């Protein structure tokens, strides 16, 4: 033998199959291609499924702690087998389809919600490159693919033939489309930084598009969270809305709509919806880690993958914390927050970063680490001030609270006649 798969990306695995006989078998090119695809799909799907299963357990245990209770603790040590029990239960339940439902659309909706999540993870660089190699349009791919989930939610809600589900999906479409705008603009602010801050000595990236995720990771000598905190905050808020969790969980709105768009779903289809929903925080955390926290970057001897996992875990915990503590906004307030708040902030951020790059960049158009630190020093106060100003503006209406004065309509100290 003497040949090993050196890294888990498409090229290395393809090399392994195609370069010579494997266990004495010569593999033709087309078969090697197919085998590679199969191995990769297996890897991506299972890695995400297993981490989602573990995450459901983690989320429920942590929520339990937040809520002064224990959380699941019956199956396996600390209840860690709970996701398996849940899955068995859901899959063995009867899968009902309402008479009013549009059957093909009703069936395809869970799959439509699930697939984009898996696709996103496929392009995230976990080593030097992603599973699929160096995708030159990585960011565009993510923005495009994640918006498919909007369609899935709409299809699922509409096909159910249920008014709760329809209200939920209507809210979902309005909200998700709105939040994609600030999200994309926040990413644009990051993309401006990618090219100029690429460190010297990173050969092989010069002619790669700034949209490539591996180049974004390579550029983050200083994590972009430090350089553009405003973009990070806007992106985090918009991403929370995109995965429809509190305070933006109007799509499901358990206390209002039952379960929103998946009210009518049961059995295995519901399980897929749930899985996709629990996958959303992980995928969001993966994107945030890649764009803002420097992805696999870290310091030796800890391997890059471990850094990546650690950062994802930290972001997931942060998202969970928000979920555990915040009430929900109303749908018009959510839309107002997107268009009046986040949209303005993301435009402002884009402008700010563009000006800073123009002012600070060197002769060759590059930004040194020192200038990145200077930008961070400017951007943090600006971020805090701009958010403060915005919240003051939003609050104005509520700032003054009149002193309670007793109404003259009743006097409880009056003597009864």
């Amino acid at each position, binding site marked *: 033998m003497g040949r090993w798969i050196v890294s888990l990306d498409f090229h290395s695995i393809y090399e392994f199959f195609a370069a010579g006989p494997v266990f004495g078998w010569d593999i033709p090119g087309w078969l090697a291609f197919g085998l590679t695809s199969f191995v990769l799909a297996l890897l991506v799907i299972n890695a995400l499924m297993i981490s989602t299963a573990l995450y459901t357990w983690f989320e429920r245990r942590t*929520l339990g702690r937040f809520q002064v209770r224990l959380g699941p603790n019956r199956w396996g040590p600390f209840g860690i087998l709970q996701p398996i029990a849940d899955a068995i239960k859901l899959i063995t339940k009867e899968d009902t389809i309402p008479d009013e439902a549009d059957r093909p659309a009703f069936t395809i909706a869970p799959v439509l919600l699930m697939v984009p999540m898996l696709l996103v993870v496929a392009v995230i660089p976990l080593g030097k490159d992603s599973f699929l190699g160096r995708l030159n349009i990585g960011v565009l791919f993510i923005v495009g693919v994640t918006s498919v989930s909007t369609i899935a939610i709409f299809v699922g809600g509409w096909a159910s033939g249920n008014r*709760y589900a329809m209200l939920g999906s209507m809210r979902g479409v309005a909200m998700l489309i709105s939040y994609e705008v600030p999200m994309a603009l926040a990413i644009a602010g990051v993309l401006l930084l990618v090219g100029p801050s690429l460190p010297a000595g990173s050969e092989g990236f010069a002619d790669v598009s700034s949209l490539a995720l591996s180049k974004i990771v390579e550029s983050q000598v200083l994590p972009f969270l430090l350089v553009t905190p405003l973009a990070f905050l806007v992106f985090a808020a918009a991403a929370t809305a995109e995965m429809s969790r509190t305070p933006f969980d109007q799509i499901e709105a358990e206390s209002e709509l039952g379960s929103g768009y998946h009210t009518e779903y049961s059995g295995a289809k519901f399980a897929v919806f749930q899985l996709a929903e629990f996958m959303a925080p992980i995928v969001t955390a993966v994107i945030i880690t890649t764009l803002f926290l420097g992805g696999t970057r870290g310091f030796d001897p800890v391997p890059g993958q471990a850094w990546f996992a650690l950062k994802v875990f930290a972001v997931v915990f942060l998202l969970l914390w928000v979920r*555990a*503590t915040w009430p*929900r906004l*109303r749908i018009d307030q959510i839309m107002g927050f997107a268009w009046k708040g986040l949209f303005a902030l993301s435009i402002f951020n884009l402008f700010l970063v563009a000006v800073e790059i123009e002012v600070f960049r060197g002769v060759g158009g590059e930004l040194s680490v020192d200038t990145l630190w200077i930008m961070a020093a400017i951007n943090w106060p600006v971020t805090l001030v701009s958010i403060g100003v915005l919240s003051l503006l939003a609050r104005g209406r509520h700032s003054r609270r009149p002193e309670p004065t*007793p*109404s003259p309509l009743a006097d409880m*100290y009056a003597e009864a006649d």
Partner: protein
Amino acid sequence: MAIKTEPITINLGPQHPSTHGVFRLRVTFDGEEILDVEPVFGYLHRGTEKLAESRSYVQVVTLTDRLDYVASMSNNLAYVRAVEKLAGIEVPERAMYLRVIAAELQRIASHMMATGFLLNDMGAFATPLMYCFRERERILDMFEMLCGARITLSYMRPGGVFQDAPDDFWAALDTFLADEPGYIGELESLITGNEVVLARTRGVGVLSDEQAVADSVTGPMLRAAGVKWDIRKADPYEVYDRLDFDVPIGASGDTFDRYLVRIQEMRESLRIIRQCVERIPEGPVRPDLPYNLRPPEGDAYAAVEGPKGELGFYLVSDRSIAPYRCKIRAPSFINLTPLKKMVVGWKMSDLIVIFGSIDVVLGEVDR
């Protein structure tokens, strides 16, 4: 082709996460905006008033537990006061203090539940609810010491209470009184200044003082509208005239005021309990009365300030061992009167929150 839009009607309940039981609302929406609501009652009707006519005066106490099942003590108190007024029974002083302590503990428990569910309706995923339940749980533990039950208490009897409080009750009450202001403060620090809570509740579902009085609204809802009215002050019963406490009122009658009034009332309740613990005398807790009371012919109405509002019992006696008629003035039911005026024009999400802020218990609404 012009796109046609039309209002849709949605059935909220009787099976719905936020109807606090089995309340049903037929809501007509224009998009998200509410055009009309039509409440449908009676899914939990058990004929309590009719059942009372075939129970002896003492047995009816168990029926009252099941009216507002999150505030059994207040129901007990209102009923036994009506019986005492009807039969002219003198209540021993120690029993009166015990009743006041129990009723005020019940008020805290009920307000905790109201606050927790209001936040839950607002979409805070069960966390504030669990914090509130933790405190309510301690009160239920104390009730268990008092009478062995936690929810359907039947602690009070015409003429007094079922039994004197055991020693461990007083110890538990002391720790509770020491801890509770801190816990209420913690709860308030999490909720009162929260931007999302403010955005969802300030100015939402305003009930003016005129409207509240016109619709016979009572309790925290009336006080949130700025009307300073509390039966404990207006028509003092038991020992309330000897106790020093304030009646908190709201500034504008919106959902936030209803929440805030409840928080402040919990603090006042703690004050009342503290004074009671200092002043409670030794003595009997229950006079020697026959099991079957035969009050003289006549009628009597007695009301208490329950956690939800004025809870009154109107009893008519024909000298038999059972009431001839028992009419219950249920505050939850009457507080629902202005619901339509409060929610029309607001959004779906506001409907849930406004309904939650009224704090109804369906056992009492449907009786």
